[in-house]
């Protein structure tokens, strides 16, 4: 069986001591936790340490890739908790010597090449391949979210505002996309969108291991951008941000990429926009994995929230580096391989947010937003907690 | 087996020698009576023999013999017979009187341990230990009892146990099948004798299995007992309290600061009795005079350390006690000796007439005040009188923290005159039964000394486990059959 992608990481894989720290450390402020381990949703093989063990077995040729193994592998949300808790950091790169997320993606790439992809993942990939989006919706509908707004199509503005699949097709995503775009425009940011010409960023396609498709998407996007004369990109979705920033350059991309919270942070740093509010609203913020752990953007969203009068930001026990994943990462948003019903990560995280006594759970990622909206319904907490995107909060603050 | 009696006697004689075995009734009778049996009016059958071995080898031979002829064995260390633990409950057994095994085999200054035989008393051990600036971590009782005997009962100590954990380190036991078992780090075939000083080694904690086993699982012939270093300054201080509640709160708060050496609460009745030698109590007015100046409740605390440390601890305890209305009282000589670890003085708690109905239980400190009232009421209800004055009686109370958890050991004594006729004693017994019924059922207080009450409280599945172990270790049921804590 094909194991070449995994094989590239062989040396490091066999350095793992197997101490198990990567699973995360329970109940610690300063420690992240693997969603699978925390929710007890998998056997040892689904915990980061176990994944290394499995990888070793594969490289030793003791076991082969198989469908059940694939299912186990796709349970990973690529939240990178393991990569931050592991102590064996390579002084040179600052990255862990045994980089589990990398190992998982590599294995998944092998899985794809061995065509052992589990149905939900296969459907996801098929949809993206056929329709260009996981929602199996026509390309023409991509721009729909902007209908009835003054959001201009990109024509040489300073920024391209890239919304991605969820922003384009998902209801919650669209709402968020509109609010971000209108807000930025209102604040005088010169931006345009691609509308129906936008293509999927392919971040999650890459993470589930379909590198070929990802490369195709990346290259098409890059050429589209270049043709349109795009130099700077504002992305709605941290997933897109991650793809553009970290994985497009290998295909010759050289754009300046921002997440919208960075732009907002910049603009309102010294603005007098906000009307002082009397009542003090408690709110907490959830770090998206692709903004936080993957790209180290912990401060911009917080700066914004702290700037708004009448809001009190309370941190959850596990925040920033140790933020607990909503469970939507690594393709799970579309494939939900992780599952977990009452014990699912998003519901656990929601309860954690509730424990802070906050009334608003602020998010900066359409996937997180959706995950938590679902959780709220499941837990019947509509009355007690609101999920709001940072742009939405800013909007309200400005309108007063 | 009766017919073999002479044969058996001959065999026993060949083991311990003529002068250390007797089957004569006058020699046997003393072994079938103790406070418990006489109080409960229990008739204990006569054993066949009392045997006094001196060496491990002799004990082993006797046990093997007992297995051959299926004779029950009732071992006893030094013979403080109060709780009915060492009585020969089944007719025709052997009382194994171990008082001749009274050697202290080693006191090791470096490991701070003593290796002792069952006949060694706390007092004897303390005397030797003190010569090496060490001291015992004793039970609350009189010092003519033996550490081995106490290990077989329970491990209550007024010594704050967090830093005195595992008093018994390792054991040498003659199993009911006659084999010699060494526990803890002593278990090692080749290295054991080089290091019998550590309890946890080579697997499960077998030493613990014998604690509280009352000899059911075998006869401890040697035990390595932990000693404690004596601090440069050791001091006993006493605080008085008007109310029991605050007094207990103070005890809890101070215990949680983790520096006390000993810690206990007693009421004025008890302390009065402790301070007065029995013949002094009998002098009219003496007790009243003392009661007048004793606070209703007292918190006795033992401190240790360097001069300045003790001073500091004293200051802190005074604050904690003060916060709760405690005031310091001069330590009566006898009280001090009790606080230091009771000896003769503690015997006074049974005075003046040495008739006492003890209500013992371990339970959360939060309930102590309530059960104190329960006993008060019961004593009133059954109109139990003071054996001396004939006035309505107030009972004795002593509270000892059990580790630093909020659990305490509570002992309450109702005194009576054992010489009084049964009719006068009956209310005392009823009172005792009622108190036990209440504190056991309502508060789940567990008795610390293995006995019938305890057996009644045992959850079946757990009881079964004990019984299985008994069967396992003692297939022939040699050790103490028929007792209040027999595991048949």
């Amino acid at each position: 069986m094909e194991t070449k992608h995994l094989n590239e990481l062989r040396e490091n894989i066999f350095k793992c001591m197997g101490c198990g720290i990567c699973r995360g450390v329970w109940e610690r402020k300063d420690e992240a936790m693997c969603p699978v381990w925390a929710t007890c949703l998998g056997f040892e093989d689904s915990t980061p340490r176990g994944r290394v063990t499995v990888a070793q077995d594969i490289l030793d040729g003791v076991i082969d890739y198989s469908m059940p193994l694939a299912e186990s592998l796709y349970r990973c949300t690529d939240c990178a908790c393991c990569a931050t808790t592991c102590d064996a950091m390579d002084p040179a790169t600052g990255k862990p010597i045994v980089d589990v997320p990398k190992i998982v993606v590599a294995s998944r790439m092998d899985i794809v090449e061995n065509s052992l992809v589990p149905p939900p993942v296969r459907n996801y990939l098929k949809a993206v391949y056929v329709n260009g989006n996981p929602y199996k919706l026509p390309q023409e509908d991509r721009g729909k979210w902007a209908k009835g707004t003054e959001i201009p199509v990109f024509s040489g503005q300073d920024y391209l505002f890239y919304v991605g699949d969820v922003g384009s097709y998902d209801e919650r995503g669209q709402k968020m996309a509109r609010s971000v775009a209108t807000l930025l425009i209102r604040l005088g940011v010169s931006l345009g969108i691609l509308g129906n010409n936008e293509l999927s960023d392919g971040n999650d396609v890459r993470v589930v291991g379909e590198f070929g498709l990802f490369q195709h998407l990346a290259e098409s996007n890059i050429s589209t951008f270049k043709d349109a004369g795009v130099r700077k990109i504002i992305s709605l979705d941290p997933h897109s941000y991650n793809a553009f920033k970290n994985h497009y350059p290998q295909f010759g991309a050289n754009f300046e990429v921002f997440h919208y919270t960075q732009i907002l942070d910049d603009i309102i740093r010294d603005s007098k926009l906000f009307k002082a509010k009397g009542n003090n609203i408690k709110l907490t913020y959830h770090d998206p994995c692709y903004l936080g752990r993957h790209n180290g953007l912990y401060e911009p969203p917080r700066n914004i929230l702290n700037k708004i009068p009448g809001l009190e930001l309370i941190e959850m026990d596990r925040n920033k580096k140790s933020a607990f994943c909503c469970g939507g990462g690594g393709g799970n948003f579309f494939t939900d391989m992780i599952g977990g019903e009452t014990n699912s990560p998003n519901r656990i995280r929601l309860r954690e947010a509730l424990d802070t006594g906050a009334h608003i759970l602020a998010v900066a990622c359409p996937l997180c937003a959706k995950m938590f909206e679902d959780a709220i319904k499941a837990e019947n907490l509509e009355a007690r907690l609101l999920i709001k995107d940072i742009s939405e909060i800013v909007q309200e603050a400005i309108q007063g | 087996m009766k017919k073999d009696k002479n044969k058996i006697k001959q065999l026993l004689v060949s083991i311990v020698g003529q002068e250390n075995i007797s089957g004569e009734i006058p020699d046997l009778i003393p072994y079938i009576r103790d406070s418990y049996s006489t109080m409960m009016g229990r008739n204990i059958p006569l054993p066949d023999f009392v045997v006094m071995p001196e060496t491990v080898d002799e004990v082993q031979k006797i046990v093997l013999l007992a297995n051959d002829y299926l004779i029950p064995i009732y071992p006893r260390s030094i013979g403080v017979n109060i709780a009915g633990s060492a009585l020969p409950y089944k007719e025709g057994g052997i009382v194994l009187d171990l008082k001749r095994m009274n050697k202290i085999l080693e006191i090791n200054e470096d490991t701070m341990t003593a290796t002792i035989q069952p006949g060694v008393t706390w007092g004897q051990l303390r005397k030797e230990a003190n010569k090496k600036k060490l001291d015992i971590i004793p039970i609350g009782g009189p010092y003519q009892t033996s550490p081995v005997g106490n290990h077989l009962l329970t491990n209550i100590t007024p010594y704050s146990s967090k830093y005195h954990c595992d008093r018994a380190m390792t054991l040498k036991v003659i199993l009911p099948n006659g084999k010699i078992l060494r526990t803890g780090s002593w278990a090692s075939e080749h290295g054991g004798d080089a290091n019998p000083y550590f309890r946890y080694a080579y697997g499960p904690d077998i030493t613990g299995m014998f604690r509280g086993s009352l000899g059911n699982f075998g006869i401890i012939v040697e035990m390595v007992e932990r000693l404690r270093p004596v601090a440069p300054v050791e001091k006993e201080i006493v605080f008085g309290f008007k109310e029991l509640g605050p007094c207990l709160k103070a005890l809890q708060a101070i215990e949680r600061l983790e520096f006390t050496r000993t810690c206990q609460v007693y009421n004025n009745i008890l302390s009065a009795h402790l301070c007065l030698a029995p013949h002094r109590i009998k002098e009219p007015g003496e007790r009243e005079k003392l009661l007048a100046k004793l606070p209703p409740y007292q918190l006795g605390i033992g401190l240790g350390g360097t001069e300045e440390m003790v001073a500091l601890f004293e200051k802190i305890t005074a604050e904690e006690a003060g916060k709760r209305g405690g005031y310091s009282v001069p330590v009566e000589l006898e009280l001090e000796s009790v606080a230091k670890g009771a000896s003769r003085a503690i015997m006074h708690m049974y005075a003046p007439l040495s008739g006492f109905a003890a209500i013992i239980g371990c339970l959360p400190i939060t309930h102590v005040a309530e059960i104190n009232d329960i006993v008060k009421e019961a004593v009133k209800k059954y109109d139990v009188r003071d054996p001396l004055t004939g006035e309505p009686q107030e009972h004795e109370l002593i509270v000892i923290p059990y580790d630093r958890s909020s659990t305490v050991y509570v002992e309450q004594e109702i005194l009576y005159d054992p010489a009084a006729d049964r009719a006068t004693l009956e209310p005392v017994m009823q009172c005792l039964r009622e108190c036990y019924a209440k504190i056991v059922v309502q508060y789940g207080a567990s008795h610390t000394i293995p006995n019938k009450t305890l057996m009644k409280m045992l959850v079946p599945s757990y009881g079964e486990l004990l019984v299985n172990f008994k069967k396992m270790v003692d297939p022939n049921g040699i050790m103490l059959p028929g007792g209040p804590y027999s595991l048949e």
Partner: protein
Amino acid sequence: MTESSRNNHPLYSEIRSIVGPEHVTVDEFSRRAYTRAPFFSMGAGGRGKTPGIAVRPGSTEEIAEIVKLANKSRIPIVPRGGGGSVSPFPPLYIGGDDNILLDTQRLNRINIDTEHMTVTAECGVILSALAETVRKKGFQVHTVDVPIHMDSVGGVLSGFVGGGEPSDMATSGTMNNYLLGLKVVLPTGEIIQTGGGPGTNIHQEKFLHRDAGGPDMTGMFIGDGGAFGIKTEATFNIFPQPSIYLPGITDMGGDENMWKAFDELVKTAPYPYTRLLSFREGNGPWYFVHVIRAHSQEEADAKKKILQDICRKNGGKAATVGDQIMQIAGMFSARRLGQQTLPVGSTMTYFGEALVPKPRSLEYLKELNALLDETVGDLDIYKRVDFVVPYLRATTITGILLYFGKGTTRDEASQRMAKTAVKRMEELFTKYGGWTETHQGTSFAHTASAWSPTYKSFMQTIKKTLDPNDILMPGLWRI
């Protein structure tokens, strides 16, 4: 056994109906994931036995059911906790190809009773979770030090003789001392609870104290390597969190001074320290790392004075806390271990770490060093650290920590060691009446080999009594 026959494990469907489909697996990759333990390749090489089926029960009752099944079909069970054994732990060797691996991670509930100062934790709870949950309530529970992030309550209570070494074992002994009671599934499938509380006392719902009044059955199950029963719940004493922890480092110079101070400190009453660790690198000076624990500043100062006086009197000088020293001081933290060795591509191991009687610790250390030079001294060892840690007053944990150079892989080192040193190492500490730390893992084979015949047969009887069908950890201690 062939892959196909594995897929229909005799008990698959029955177990499935007990725990539900998602909590049982026969997939090979899944089962094999349980064959690795930290540093496993040390001293052993390769992986452990692959279980025939892995199951993750969610409750004590489910475990009891599974155990009953196992008894019916005589298929051995291997319980597993956090999988953090820092050495080849018995589970990895035990049983046959049909083994049922019992993964307890789903038993992770914690229940704190601050009024009575107790905490009850299920056996799957990771110790750092326990410690932290209790800490948040302002209390402290004694758990183990090194594998606190890896090991589970059940694993430590079974795997460590004495139930594990708390970080301040120097003064507070083993975890066993703070254990009030256990809920245990006996090998027969019966559920019992030990300790002076519910389970032994029909009238008591609270855990009061360890002694049920009768024999202490709790201790029986501690350090049993899981052979006597599957622990599913444990209740511990908790203590008020002291407000002050005061760490310090003292340079104690040569053997003689160090030992004088060490001996005096260990004999001091009350203890001025809560932790004490004595180590030296190569032939450098001895260092004391000491931690003072106090409920008030005054108390801390008083203790500090005593500690300093004793050190100074014997030529101790306050040392600056250099990285080097802290790194070595952290050698007991598995986390630092990783930081130290992996990046430089080297590897480390403990050499002859053993519990020996305090008075003879240095003597042992000398002989151990000699043995080291003689056996594996020629391996590329770039750092060796002697250490002596008091364990209450009578015993110390003494040994050498070895850091191998880049060239040396762990396997190479361990195989050399297994070949040349291990046997003589055991002979050496046995001579001193010591044993390889309290860890069942490294010493379970040695453990049994050290037993006196009577002890062995005694353990056999216990095992037979509890486990007539030899279901739990068959062959542990090779009895």
